Each structure stands twice: as C-alpha cells, then as structure tokens.
C-alpha cells in the first residue's frame, strides 16, 4: 500500500524488482532468468516460436512490400498483369506447411508439459494459502507459516494451492510456473529450483484492489541452509510472545491490507484497530456491543455474525486458518491498539505466559530433536 507515494509495507515493493533482470539491460530482454528445471524446455520452445515468427513475418512483409513497389498502379486505368485467381497446388502447399509447423509446436508444448505434469513422489510439500491480498506458506503440516516461500535447491517441491476467498494465481516468472489458486479446489504445482537466490512471486489472476501488490518472494537455499531455516522457524514460531506473534500475523495474514492501526480507514477495507477493545462497537443491525475479548475472537472467526456499522461484510473468516495460539496472538495485537488497556496488561502481552514458558521450551527442544531426524525422512 502506498500513502502519498510512500510504500507502507516496504518489503512488498522491493519484491517487485526482479533481481535476475538488471534495470539497465531490461528494455529488450525477453525472458527472466531460467532458474528451474521447467525453464529450459519452455525457453527452447519460446525461442523456436520466436524465430519461426520472425521468419514468417519477414517473408510476408517482404513479399507485400515487394509487390506494392513492383506492381504499383502507375496510371489510374492500369490493369492487372495476370488473371490467375486460383491454384489448388499453391493453396494446398500453403495450408500444409503452416499445419506441419503448428503441429510440431503443439506437440513440443504438449510433450514438455506432460513430461512434468505430475510431481515426483519424493517432492517436498508446502501449502500455499492465498487471500485478498497476500500469500502465506505453511510448512511441516502447519507447524509454522511464512509470508515468503523458502525452498531447497535441486529438490522437487510440490505446492498445494488453497485460497481463502477468490481466485488467485501463483506465478513465479523465473521458474516459468503458474497455477490458479481456486477456492474449494486443491490445485497443485511443482518445480525444482536450480539456482540459489531470491525471485519474485506474484498473483496473476485479478483479485481486486491490491491485486498488483499481492507479491511475495521465493528464496532458494542450499538444502543444508533450507533445513536450518526450517528448524529455526519452527522454534521461533513456538517462542514468540503473543504481541510479537500477533504483529507478525497482522502482516502475514493480511489483516494489514484492510485494517490500519493509526485510526485511518482503508478504502475498500475495514475499521482501524485503534481503540476497538473495550469500546462500544455500533453494528449494522443498529445495536451496539462492548468489544471484549470474546467479541474480538468472534470477529475473527465469524466476521459475518456481527458486522460493524458502515462496513460491508467482506472480511474472510479465519476459522480453521489460525490455531488457538495464533488466535490469541491476534486478539492480543488488537487489544494492544486500545488506550483502555492498562500498562500492566500491555506488559503481560509482551511476555510469554509465565507458567507456559517451561513447557514451551520443552516443546521447542523436542522439535529441534525432530529436526535432527528430519533429513532421513525427507530425502
């Protein structure tokens, strides 16, 4: 989002620059870097069609221009030099030659698509969740989520695509892959990245206001680094205090694209989180509710049940999308934006709950232990 020309969430915009295409060389460059195993086939066909097209175009134009010059009408009554108006031989020739070329292009496009239609069995699986307007990627059966996609190099990765609301489309230009993300339908895509680096990931299916900012990044890491990242993220996800986790989720889950925290109202979005907690909320029905913790939970899980006056019922439900810890963290984050929260209460949100601290650490240890065992499992 921009406010007065300044990007509000800066990482979103950085993202858009494709590091594989330098700004200087970009004007005539046809394709981005080829960084997956899909790219070589695609690029071969792309350049093949390009050259066929250039040749066909040149032939047609050259013939046309030559005829125009050669057979120009010099005086208004000049007649044509020939009366030939038909030749089955020619017609058949120029029907068959393009047909053969077309069938070849079809066949190559089809074959290279089919070769890679299904992911290998040992592919590493990640779930991508799209919503208006952002992405998040869920790892290790939902153990943690990341707003950006991290994948190992040289290992097939399968992505299960789910959408929380409308149709989106996951597009990674440098990998030459794209697949629609359709609500209620589990599409999959897969690829094997071949280059370490960071690449843009975009939404290619129009999905409303911030469609063009529905961006993320793909980080391709060496397998070792990838595993290390996995275990760190898993620990971090379990160790964050509620408010900090809530703040992350506020961005990662896309609340930020509809709810501000400074009191301003986002066009096409919802009310600001500023001073909601412990305030009277007017509802569309004309009633008013005191926004307590329960109300906030309901607003996130069942947004349609109590719609705030002056807004439309467009917020997606997060039931089933967030676990109990995440829900509590989101509520904590909304609470923290209210001036009716006492300083002590705020401090409490910044800490991990005392009695849980130990067991949390235990859990983290256990999971770190799991990680050690992981390689054997996934390789």
């Amino acid at each position: 989002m921009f406010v007065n020309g300044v990007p509000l969430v800066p990482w979103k915009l950085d993202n858009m620059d494709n590091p594989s295409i330098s700004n200087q060389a970009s004007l005539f460059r046809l394709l981005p870097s080829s960084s997956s195993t899909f790219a070589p086939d695609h690029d071969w066909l792309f350049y093949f069609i390009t050259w066929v097209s250039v040749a066909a175009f040149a032939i047609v134009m050259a013939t046309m221009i030559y005829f125009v010059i050669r057979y120009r009408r010099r005086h208004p009554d000049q007649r044509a030099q020939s009366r030939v108006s038909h030749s089955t031989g020619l017609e058949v020739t120029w029907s068959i030659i393009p047909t053969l070329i077309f069938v070849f292009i079809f066949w190559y496009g089809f074959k290279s698509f089919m070769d890679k239609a299904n992911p290998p069995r040992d592919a590493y699986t990640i779930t991508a969740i799209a919503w208006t307007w952002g992405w998040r990627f869920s790892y290790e059966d939902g153990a943690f989520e990341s707003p950006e996609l991290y994948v190992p190099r040289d290992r097939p990765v399968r992505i299960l695509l789910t959408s929380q609301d409308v149709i989106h489309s996951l597009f990674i230009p440098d990998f030459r892959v794209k697949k629609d993300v359709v609500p209620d339908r589990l599409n999959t895509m897969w690829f094997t990245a071949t280059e370490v680096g960071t690449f843009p990931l975009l939404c290619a299916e129009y999905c409303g206001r911030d469609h063009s900012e529905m961006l993320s990044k793909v980080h391709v890491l060496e397998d070792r680094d990838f595993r290390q990242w996995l275990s760190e993220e898993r620990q971090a996800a379990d160790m964050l205090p509620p408010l900090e986790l809530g703040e992350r989720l506020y961005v990662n889950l896309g609340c930020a694209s509809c709810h501000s925290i400074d009191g301003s109202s986002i066009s096409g979005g919802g009310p600001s989180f500023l001073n909601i907690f412990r305030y009277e909320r007017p509802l569309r029905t004309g009633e008013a509710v005191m926004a307590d913790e329960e109300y906030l939970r309901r607003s996130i899980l069942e947004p349609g049940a109590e719609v705030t006056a002056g807004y439309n019922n467009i917020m997606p439900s997060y039931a089933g999308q967030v676990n109990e810890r995440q829900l509590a963290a989101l509520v904590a984050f909304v609470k923290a934006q209210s001036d009716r929260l006492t300083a002590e209460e705020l401090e409490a949100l910044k800490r991990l709950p005392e009695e849980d601290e130990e067991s949390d650490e235990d859990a983290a240890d256990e999971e770190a232990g799991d990680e050690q065992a992981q390689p054997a499992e996934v390789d």
Partner: protein
Amino acid sequence: MSVTTTPPITVGHRQQPSSPPPGSNYLNARRGIMSWLITLDHKRIALLYLFGVLGAYFLGGVFALLVRLELFTPSPVLAGSSEKAWELYNHMFTLHGAVMVFLFIIPAIPAIIGNFVLPLMLGAKDLAFPRINLASFYFWLAGGLFFTYVLIKGVLNFTFPVLETIWGPGGLDTGWTFYTPYSTTLTQTAVVEATLGAFILGFASILTGVNFIASIHTLRPKGMTWFRMPLFLWSLYATSIIMILATPVLAITLLLLAAERVLGVGIFDPNMGGDPILYQHFFWFYSHPAVYIMVLPALGILSELISVFSRKHIFGYKFIAISSLAIAFIGFLVWGHHMFVSGQSPLANAIFSLLTFFVAVPSAIKTFNWLATMHKGSISLKTPMVYALLTIFLFVVGGLTGLFLGAINTNVHLTDTYFVVAHFHYVMMGTVLFAFLGAMYYWWPKIWGKMYNENWARIAAIVVFIGFNQTFFWQFIMGSQGMPRRYATYSTQYTRHHQFSTVGAFVMTAGLVMVLANMVHSVAVGRRAPRNPWGGNSLEWHTPSPPTTFNFDRTPYAGDPYNYDHWRYVSEEEGYVYDPPDSDDEDITRP
C-alpha cells in the same frame, strides 16, 4: 492454374453523371429528427449505429488513456493514496475493456459497415427485416446507455464523492470477464446492473445476426450464387452464425451470475456448493467465439479491399470463403485455451491446444491468398488500401504471437501477463480498428457522397499505426519478462516500457483526431464523390453515391464481384465508369 471467365456484371443501364439531383438520395430524402429516429432504411440505421458506436469508442478511448496515465509511474498517479488509486484503476480498466468489447468492437463492423453495405452488395432494397433492424439498434442503445451509466457512475463517485449521495453507488471492477467468485462475493460494485446491461446488448447482437442470415439466404439477386457472393458477405454470414449460437450462452451465464448474487442460488460460489471454474467454461464458450465475431468481418473487409485496389480477382475465393466458416465452427471448440492453468485436466489442455492450432491454419491461408491476390496486380495505394496493408501487418503479428499462447508449455508462463494484453490488442484492436477505418474510407464516398483528403488520410493512417505499435509492442516484452496483467502498479524494471507505451497511446490519439477531423471536413466541404471512385465491382458500386432510399432503381443482375474488366477510368469523373463490352446491355442484364 485457371483463369476466371465469368459473365460481367451490370445493373441494366449505363453510368449516369455523378451525384443524383438534390432531394433524391437516402440522406436528403426525408428531413427532420424523427425521419432518422424511426427510419427503417438500413443505411440510416447504419449511421445511427455509427454515431452511437463512435460515442462508445470515444468513451472507451478516454479510459484507455486514463489507464495508460495511471501506469505512467509505479506509484499512484490519479489519486493520492494507493488504495484509492488502485480501486479507481480497477474501475477504469474494467470500463475500458467492457465498453470497447461490448459496445465498440463487437458492433463496429457488422452493425455499421455490415448494415450499410450488406443489402447494397445483395442488390436489395433493405435487409430482410427492416423493423427488426431498427429494434436491434434500440436494444443496443438501451443496453449500451444503461451499461455505461452503471459503469461510469463508479468512476464519477470516486472523483466526486458527493455524487454518490445523489445517484447511489455503482461502477464495476471485475474486469469485462466478470470472473466468479470475485464478482459474486467480494466486489461491492454493481455487478447485477452491469450484467443486465450486457444482457440487453446481447439481443441487439442476436437480432442483427438473424437479420443478416435471413437476408443472405433470401435476398441474393439473380446471378449471385453462394460462391459468387462478395467475401465480405461470407464473413458476415459466418459472424452471424456465431452471434446467434454463442450470445445466448453469454446471456444465460450472466443470468446465472445475477441469480447467484441476488437470490443466493449456489452455482459458481464454492461456499454455496458451486464451482467457479464452471463459470469460466460458460464465459469462454461465448467469449472465444466472440473474438471471431470481432475479427472475421475485419478479414472479410481485407479481402474486398485488397482485390479492388490490386484490380485483380481475389485469389483462392473458395478457400477464403470456406476458411471463414471453418474459423466459425472450430472457434467454438477452443475455449479451454483460456484455462490452461486453471487446474483443467491435462487431456483437456491437450485437446484445446491442438484445436487452437487448427483454427490458426485458416487465418494463415487467408493471409497467403491476399498476397497472391496482389501478385501481378495493379496496386493502388489509396487510403483504404494503406489501411488494408497495415491491417495485414497487425494481423500477422497478432496471429504469430498467438502461437506462443496456443502451445501449453509457453502458455503457462505467458498467460495472464502483458503478453496476452499485447496479443489481443494486436488481434482485436489492431486488426479490427484498422480494417474498420479502411472500410470507412472505402465506403465513405458511398455513404456520404463526398470524397476526403487523400494525403491527410494517409498521413493519419501512418500516425495511428506508429502510435499503435509504440503502445503495444513493449507489452509483449513486459509480458514475457513476467509482468502480470491488470496490475495498477509494477516493478521499476518495467517503468520505461510503460512510459513508451503511454506516449504511444497519445500518439495514436493524435492520429485518430486527424482521422476524425478529415472526415468531418469531408462531410462539410468534401468534393462530390463519383459513383465508383475505386473501380470496385460489387453491386454497391453500380448505384449512385449516395444511393437512393431504395438503393437501386431496378433489381440488378450480379456477376462475378471480382471481375474488374469493364470498369474504365474516366478522369472527368475522377472515378471509374462501367463500360460493358456489349453495347446492348439489356441482353446481359436479363439473361
């Protein structure tokens, strides 16, 4: 190789001195506003369409420029905050696309040029159903005005929020494709009203299609067998078949969409047990053939222009005629190529891809036939021919870039990017607009009885052409680099491409203003047009410019429309004069 030997064509009397006496042509036969608004004369209805469609084109064009302006830089241009700017952008590109598709490209050639020329080419007094013709215009007008009203409301509400308190919310931000579930759940815009507008517009299309088919079947004059019909009629015939078969599908789809939004019937919304992909199947089942509704008449015009201005019989008449029908029929079987990445099964992808390549073959055949027509012709570079040649250029670029999109593998990377935007602008906007302008210049003398300034017309054509390529060429490169379509903002890697493109749009606008100025100038003070300024031989050139209300004073006899042997250039006329070999022409007209 065979040589055409077909009997000449005549209308039963020799060329009269040009321009009929005042008060006797269709333009001045009757006066008063009502004589236009309730006219049954196909030529006057064509002119009603002309002004209506040009109005729509103007509106769509203004929004094209606004869209290009917003894209001049990645940060918001037309509004202060990005949320506002992006929402406005979404309204604007929707309005541009929907108005251009439904109100300009689809009706432009059939409803304006077709309406005017089809009965003349048939040597008929009018279409088979003149009243239905008028009704179709009013359906178009009602649907069009309502549709525009709904869409423009959204944009104006943005700019002047006070308006919303007066006329309520409106607008549309779904793109012209109305994809579900966005259109049935998330968007807050006037989807139902907009679909109603498009629904009404559909009737105009269907009625025109029915009328054309009936006219071609029943009104052909003596001598005009199916394979002696001008190719433009073949293309209108093929187009009409698509119109009456495909448009009802769109209408039903839009009704279902409205039913879901209003009545909560779950058809496309997965939350109600519907399937959003089903919507795409329905939508493209209409909208792919609709591409041919737009482009086939344009190709028909090219066949006319290239033959007349090469003064040589069209090459491969039957192949061209049949290829129009082939395109119309195969065109119904390729809609799935819009959905290669939707999760459609690989088998379906393969079939749709293969059929897509088959539909490309007839287009290639047409192009080669046009070139062969020019071979050893007598090529005159009058304005209509300049447009025809430029159209071939654009059509070839559009067609060849279609190969990238037809192959599944490359489609995956390119679909939903600017490559597609560039491709369909070359095919739809490039080919159709240029052929339409070529047709306007070609039949202009017949329509108005006035000539225009050739040099200005040709210069304007070049300016529009340069502007067009400047606008759209860069979009291929952006697309293959990975810039998705319908983006209101973009990576700085594309800034220069977008800026070149925006500048191009203004160059093109300048060219179009020149076109318009020349036309207005021509109607106001243009030189009187001869009966046949180009030497064409289809029947409309055998009647005065402009024709009388009933077109011909005798039912003409039609020979081969592409035989130019008997037209002789007469410099006092500044046009061609019919000169049958046999002085006793009664014998030829009444065989």
